Protein backbone atom coordinates (compact mmCIF):
# COMPACT_ATOMS: atom_id res chain seq x y z
CA UNK A 1 0.00 0.00 0.00
CA UNK A 2 1.18 3.51 -0.81
CA UNK A 3 0.87 6.07 1.98
CA UNK A 4 0.92 9.86 1.99
CA UNK A 5 1.73 11.37 5.38
CA UNK A 6 1.24 14.92 6.55
CA UNK A 7 2.74 16.27 9.75
CA UNK A 8 0.88 19.22 11.30
CA UNK A 9 2.17 19.46 14.87
CA UNK A 10 5.34 21.18 16.09
CA UNK A 11 8.26 18.88 16.95
CA UNK A 12 9.14 21.13 19.89
CA UNK A 13 5.72 21.24 21.55
CA UNK A 14 3.92 18.12 20.34
CA UNK A 15 4.58 14.45 19.66
CA UNK A 16 3.11 14.64 16.13
CA UNK A 17 6.34 14.55 14.13
CA UNK A 18 7.90 11.79 16.21
CA UNK A 19 4.74 9.67 15.94
CA UNK A 20 4.69 10.21 12.17
CA UNK A 21 8.34 9.16 11.96
CA UNK A 22 7.64 5.96 13.88
CA UNK A 23 4.62 5.27 11.65
CA UNK A 24 6.76 5.80 8.54
CA UNK A 25 9.44 3.40 9.77
CA UNK A 26 6.82 0.77 10.64
CA UNK A 27 5.05 1.14 7.29
CA UNK A 28 8.30 0.71 5.35
CA UNK A 29 9.33 -2.25 7.52
CA UNK A 30 5.98 -3.90 6.70
CA UNK A 31 6.65 -3.54 2.98
CA UNK A 32 4.48 -0.49 2.29
CA UNK A 33 5.57 2.57 0.35
CA UNK A 34 5.53 6.26 1.27
CA UNK A 35 4.78 8.59 -1.62
CA UNK A 36 5.70 11.75 0.26
CA UNK A 37 5.78 13.23 3.75
CA UNK A 38 4.33 16.74 3.67
CA UNK A 39 5.02 19.08 6.59
CA UNK A 40 2.33 21.69 7.17
CA UNK A 41 1.19 24.11 9.90
CA UNK A 42 3.65 23.94 12.83
CA UNK A 43 4.92 20.62 11.45
CA UNK A 44 7.28 22.56 9.16
CA UNK A 45 9.41 23.27 12.23
CA UNK A 46 10.58 19.66 11.91
CA UNK A 47 12.89 20.84 9.11
CA UNK A 48 14.48 23.64 11.17
CA UNK A 49 18.17 22.73 11.40
CA UNK A 50 18.83 25.66 13.75
CA UNK A 51 16.65 24.27 16.53
CA UNK A 52 18.55 22.79 19.48
CA UNK A 53 16.44 20.17 21.26
CA UNK A 54 17.44 19.08 24.77
CA UNK A 55 19.81 16.11 24.94
CA UNK A 56 17.29 13.83 26.67
CA UNK A 57 14.67 14.40 23.93
CA UNK A 58 16.59 14.79 20.67
CA UNK A 59 13.52 15.19 18.45
CA UNK A 60 12.64 13.71 15.08
CA UNK A 61 14.90 15.64 12.64
CA UNK A 62 17.79 13.15 12.56
CA UNK A 63 15.34 10.29 12.09
CA UNK A 64 13.63 11.96 9.15
CA UNK A 65 16.98 12.75 7.53
CA UNK A 66 18.04 9.13 7.95
CA UNK A 67 14.77 7.94 6.39
CA UNK A 68 15.27 10.23 3.41
CA UNK A 69 18.85 9.06 2.88
CA UNK A 70 18.39 5.33 3.47
CA UNK A 71 14.88 4.77 2.10
CA UNK A 72 14.57 7.65 -0.35
CA UNK A 73 11.48 9.07 1.35
CA UNK A 74 10.57 12.48 -0.07
CA UNK A 75 10.30 15.19 2.59
CA UNK A 76 8.52 18.42 1.58
CA UNK A 77 7.64 21.48 3.66
CA UNK A 78 4.83 23.86 2.73
CA UNK A 79 6.71 26.93 1.59
CA UNK A 80 4.28 29.55 2.92
CA UNK A 81 3.88 27.80 6.28
CA UNK A 82 7.67 27.51 6.50
CA UNK A 83 8.48 31.13 5.63
CA UNK A 84 6.17 32.60 8.25
CA UNK A 85 7.87 30.36 10.85
CA UNK A 86 11.42 31.22 9.86
CA UNK A 87 12.18 28.01 7.97
CA UNK A 88 14.16 29.45 5.06
CA UNK A 89 16.06 27.89 2.15
CA UNK A 90 18.71 29.56 0.01
CA UNK A 91 16.20 30.84 -2.54
CA UNK A 92 14.06 32.49 0.12
CA UNK A 93 17.15 33.87 1.82
CA UNK A 94 18.17 35.64 -1.40
CA UNK A 95 14.64 36.74 -2.30
CA UNK A 96 13.88 38.27 1.09
CA UNK A 97 17.39 39.51 1.92
CA UNK A 98 17.69 37.36 5.06
CA UNK A 99 20.85 36.63 7.06
CA UNK A 100 20.83 32.85 6.88
CA UNK A 101 19.07 29.62 6.05
CA UNK A 102 17.41 27.14 8.39
CA UNK A 103 15.78 24.51 6.14
CA UNK A 104 17.64 21.21 6.47
CA UNK A 105 18.93 20.16 3.00
CA UNK A 106 17.16 16.79 3.21
CA UNK A 107 13.87 18.71 2.82
CA UNK A 108 12.50 20.56 -0.17
CA UNK A 109 9.94 23.36 -0.03
CA UNK A 110 6.90 23.50 -2.29
CA UNK A 111 3.32 24.68 -2.42
CA UNK A 112 0.19 22.95 -1.15
CA UNK A 113 -0.22 21.39 -4.59
CA UNK A 114 2.36 18.84 -3.46
CA UNK A 115 0.11 17.86 -0.55
CA UNK A 116 -2.93 17.52 -2.77
CA UNK A 117 -0.96 15.58 -5.39
CA UNK A 118 0.14 13.17 -2.66
CA UNK A 119 -3.47 12.74 -1.50
CA UNK A 120 -4.53 11.89 -5.04
CA UNK A 121 -1.62 9.58 -5.79
CA UNK A 122 -1.68 7.46 -2.61
CA UNK A 123 -3.91 4.68 -1.35
CA UNK A 124 -4.09 6.11 2.16
CA UNK A 125 -3.38 9.46 3.77
CA UNK A 126 -2.56 9.82 7.45
CA UNK A 127 -2.22 13.24 9.09
CA UNK A 128 -0.44 13.80 12.38
CA UNK A 129 -1.89 16.84 14.14
CA UNK A 130 -0.79 18.30 17.46
Amino acid at each position, binding site marked *: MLFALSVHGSPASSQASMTALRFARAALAAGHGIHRVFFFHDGVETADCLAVPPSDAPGPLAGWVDLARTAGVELTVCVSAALRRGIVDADARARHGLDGTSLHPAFSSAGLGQLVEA*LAASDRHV*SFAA
Partner: protein
Amino acid sequence: MTTARRLLLILRQPPYTSVNPREAIDVALVAAAFEFEVSVLFEGRGVWQLLAGQHGAALDQPTHGDALAELPRHEVTRFYVCADALAAAGLGAEALVLPVEPLSHAAQRALVASHEVVITD
Protein backbone atom coordinates in the same frame (compact mmCIF):
# COMPACT_ATOMS: atom_id res chain seq x y z
CA MET B 1 -2.67 5.70 -9.54
CA THR B 2 -5.65 5.75 -7.21
CA THR B 3 -8.00 8.63 -7.93
CA ALA B 4 -9.39 9.79 -4.61
CA ARG B 5 -11.75 12.59 -5.46
CA ARG B 6 -13.82 13.44 -2.37
CA LEU B 7 -11.97 15.35 0.32
CA LEU B 8 -13.32 16.31 3.76
CA LEU B 9 -11.56 19.10 5.64
CA ILE B 10 -12.31 19.05 9.39
CA LEU B 11 -11.75 22.39 11.15
CA ARG B 12 -11.54 22.13 14.94
CA GLN B 13 -9.71 25.27 15.98
CA PRO B 14 -11.09 28.74 16.71
CA PRO B 15 -10.05 31.68 14.50
CA TYR B 16 -7.42 34.26 15.49
CA THR B 17 -5.79 32.15 18.23
CA SER B 18 -3.53 30.39 15.73
CA VAL B 19 -2.82 30.58 12.02
CA ASN B 20 -4.05 27.02 11.43
CA PRO B 21 -7.59 27.93 10.31
CA ARG B 22 -6.21 30.32 7.70
CA GLU B 23 -3.70 27.78 6.45
CA ALA B 24 -6.37 25.07 6.33
CA ILE B 25 -8.57 27.21 4.07
CA ASP B 26 -5.72 27.15 1.57
CA VAL B 27 -5.94 23.34 1.55
CA ALA B 28 -9.61 23.60 0.56
CA LEU B 29 -8.80 26.05 -2.25
CA VAL B 30 -5.91 24.04 -3.66
CA ALA B 31 -7.79 20.74 -3.43
CA ALA B 32 -10.74 22.28 -5.27
CA ALA B 33 -8.34 23.60 -7.92
CA PHE B 34 -7.06 20.02 -8.30
CA GLU B 35 -10.66 18.94 -8.93
CA PHE B 36 -11.37 17.32 -5.61
CA GLU B 37 -14.96 17.58 -4.41
CA VAL B 38 -14.28 19.41 -1.16
CA SER B 39 -16.51 19.35 1.93
CA VAL B 40 -15.78 21.26 5.12
CA LEU B 41 -16.90 20.16 8.60
CA PHE B 42 -16.65 22.56 11.56
CA GLU B 43 -16.51 20.89 14.92
CA GLY B 44 -15.53 21.71 18.51
CA ARG B 45 -14.25 25.25 18.95
CA GLY B 46 -13.90 25.43 15.16
CA VAL B 47 -17.55 26.54 15.00
CA TRP B 48 -16.40 30.02 16.12
CA GLN B 49 -14.85 30.44 12.66
CA LEU B 50 -18.43 30.78 11.38
CA LEU B 51 -19.49 33.68 13.58
CA ALA B 52 -20.84 36.61 11.56
CA GLY B 53 -19.59 40.15 12.15
CA GLN B 54 -15.90 39.36 12.66
CA HIS B 55 -13.48 42.30 12.54
CA GLY B 56 -9.97 40.96 12.09
CA ALA B 57 -8.44 44.40 11.63
CA ALA B 58 -8.82 44.97 15.38
CA LEU B 59 -6.25 42.17 15.79
CA ASP B 60 -4.11 43.19 12.80
CA GLN B 61 -5.29 40.08 10.99
CA PRO B 62 -7.41 39.48 7.89
CA THR B 63 -11.05 38.78 8.72
CA HIS B 64 -11.34 35.01 8.76
CA GLY B 65 -15.07 34.98 8.12
CA ASP B 66 -14.51 36.91 4.89
CA ALA B 67 -12.10 34.22 3.67
CA LEU B 68 -14.64 31.51 4.50
CA ALA B 69 -17.40 33.40 2.71
CA GLU B 70 -15.23 33.47 -0.43
CA LEU B 71 -14.95 29.67 -0.62
CA PRO B 72 -18.19 29.09 -2.59
CA ARG B 73 -16.73 31.25 -5.39
CA HIS B 74 -13.88 28.72 -5.63
CA GLU B 75 -15.94 25.54 -6.03
CA VAL B 76 -16.04 24.77 -2.30
CA THR B 77 -19.75 24.63 -1.60
CA ARG B 78 -20.46 21.86 0.93
CA PHE B 79 -20.36 23.03 4.54
CA TYR B 80 -21.36 21.06 7.63
CA VAL B 81 -21.23 21.79 11.33
CA CYS B 82 -21.46 19.66 14.46
CA ALA B 83 -24.94 20.50 15.78
CA ASP B 84 -23.89 19.93 19.40
CA ALA B 85 -20.84 22.19 19.07
CA LEU B 86 -22.94 24.91 17.48
CA ALA B 87 -25.47 24.70 20.30
CA ALA B 88 -22.73 24.63 22.95
CA ALA B 89 -21.35 27.87 21.51
CA GLY B 90 -24.81 29.40 21.63
CA LEU B 91 -24.76 30.08 17.91
CA GLY B 92 -27.81 29.87 15.68
CA ALA B 93 -27.64 29.03 12.00
CA GLU B 94 -28.78 32.58 11.15
CA ALA B 95 -25.71 34.17 12.80
CA LEU B 96 -23.15 32.50 10.51
CA VAL B 97 -21.05 33.63 7.56
CA LEU B 98 -21.96 30.58 5.46
CA PRO B 99 -24.98 28.36 4.96
CA VAL B 100 -24.00 25.22 6.88
CA GLU B 101 -25.86 21.99 7.49
CA PRO B 102 -25.93 20.96 11.19
CA LEU B 103 -25.19 17.27 11.66
CA SER B 104 -25.65 14.83 14.53
CA HIS B 105 -22.66 12.78 15.63
CA ALA B 106 -24.01 9.80 13.70
CA ALA B 107 -24.36 11.91 10.56
CA GLN B 108 -20.78 13.18 11.02
CA ARG B 109 -19.53 9.60 11.15
CA ALA B 110 -21.39 8.89 7.90
CA LEU B 111 -19.93 12.05 6.36
CA VAL B 112 -16.38 10.97 7.23
CA ALA B 113 -17.03 7.48 5.87
CA SER B 114 -18.27 8.89 2.56
CA HIS B 115 -14.99 10.70 1.78
CA GLU B 116 -11.85 9.05 0.42
CA VAL B 117 -9.59 11.68 1.98
CA VAL B 118 -10.08 13.29 5.40
CA ILE B 119 -7.70 15.95 6.61
CA THR B 120 -7.79 17.84 9.92
CA ASP B 121 -6.23 21.16 10.79
